[in-house]
């Protein structure tokens, strides 16, 4: 890949041109510092596993220096890599300080070598992949495809967006929600009527309407509410039919009922 890079002659003087030729100047041709390092490493003419990282760091730093002297602007990441390589170089050259922790220069160098080898391996793999037989170029799919006849069967479908919107809708309280009775906790007027009819005949004296609530329903607030409402409505129904009398001594006092006088109840 480095081969098809443009070698740009930047300067006029012979000395500078010679210097420029020693390096591949066109930074534009590189895909980042790692790519540049990989290209520089080829000048060592050894297997990537044998490469001298110290030497490579020096080559890179020399390149950056040269680029500076030629007033070529380098992107920030090239400079960051230069700083890091300068640090690596010092670690490789100086004996490690006993107090210093962190990875050794050798560890860092080995990792850089690994990165270079891995990048090269991916480049090679990409080339091998693209060299494979490819559909539409080397082998071909069926040119004539048959229309499949329409038969009426229905399949249901939905998109991911439908799914997410549905979920969002459910989890959003202010959404309209169809009104549905909570059947388990609902005491209907019909039920209350049945119950009252069968009990009220025994009620010769005024008795609290609340005593006619079905067993257990007075415990849970929600159930007590629905049972009270249903029983009250049923009692009004029975008053209307003339079966019972109803009274409330004062506001918010208990409501009382009893069987209507002179009636068979």
């Amino acid at each position: 890949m480095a081969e098809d890079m443009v070698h740009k002659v930047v300067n006029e003087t012979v000395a500078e041109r010679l210097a420029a030729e020693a390096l591949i100047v066109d930074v534009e041709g590189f895909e980042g510092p790692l790519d540049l390092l990989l290209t520089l490493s080829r000048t060592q003419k050894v297997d990537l596993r044998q490469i001298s990282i110290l030497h490579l760091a020096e080559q890179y730093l020399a390149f950056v220096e040269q680029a500076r002297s030629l007033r070529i602007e380098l992107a920030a990441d090239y400079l960051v890599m230069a700083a890091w390589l300068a640090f690596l170089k010092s670690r490789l050259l100086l004996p490690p300080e006993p107090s210093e922790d962190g990875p050794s220069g050798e560890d860092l160098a080995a990792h850089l070598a690994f990165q270079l080898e891995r990048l090269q391996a991916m480049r090679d793999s990409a080339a091998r992949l693209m060299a494979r037989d490819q559909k539409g170029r080397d082998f071909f799919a069926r040119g004539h495809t048959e229309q499949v006849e329409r038969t009426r069967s229905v399949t249901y479908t939905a998109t991911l967006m439908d799914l997410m919107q549905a979920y969002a809708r459910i989890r959003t309280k202010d959404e309209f929600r169809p009104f549905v009775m909570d059947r388990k906790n609902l005491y209907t007027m019909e039920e209350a009527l049945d119950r009252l009819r069968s009990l009220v005949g025994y009620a010769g004296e005024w008795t609290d309407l609340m005593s006619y609530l079905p067993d257990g329903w007075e415990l849970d607030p929600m159930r007590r509410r629905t049972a009270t409402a249903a029983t009250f409505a049923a009692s009004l129904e029975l008053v209307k039919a003339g079966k019972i009398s109803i009274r409330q001594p004062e506001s918010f006092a208990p409501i009382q009922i009893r069987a209507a006088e002179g009636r068979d109840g």
Partner: protein
Amino acid sequence: MAETDLPEEESLFEAPPLGEQERMVEAILFATSEPVSIADLNARMPHGADAVRALEGLRKRYEGRGVNVVRIGEAWAIRTAPDLGFLMQKETVETRKLSRAAIETLAIIAYHQPVTRAEIEEIRGVSVSRGTVDQLLEMEWIKFGRRRMTPGRPVTYVVTPGFLDHFGLESARDLPGLRELRAAGLLDNRPRPGFGPEERADEDEGQPDMFEAPPDE
């Protein structure tokens, strides 16, 4: 390659063997959308090849097979054997949008799986009809999961690989979370408190016993 117009027998280049010519005709007829004329075949094959003979061999080879080499006007093509036309009929099906109840139920199962019917009803706030669940089961988008180890041992529902496939998901965990839904403007309110999927594994109307919990996957 075929730079000369010399007749076959005088050709400097030997024609490929007949078997090879058959392969060539086979590939051309397969890959070309329109029927191909003899002249076209000859023009595309190497010099000295004889499309008529190769076609004859190929036609014999495909006799009685699932596809046949057929003549269409002045040209040739490979077509499905007429007796197998019925295989080409099943495919197109009318697609309809899932009902709102079904899509909501499906969404809850996808986000909360494994989830019992009672939990689905709690989250939706309405009861879930048997038909809705059956439809999703029939579409093979949901299936029965393990039974919940709670009183009544209610069955749970989970989504299937078919569901993931349809929605292009690698796993149900890849569904956007509530935070992402909210970021996308699909969700405004905070989730209702106390909605841990495990917290309310109790009341259920008791699933029919015929549904055995399948082994874990």
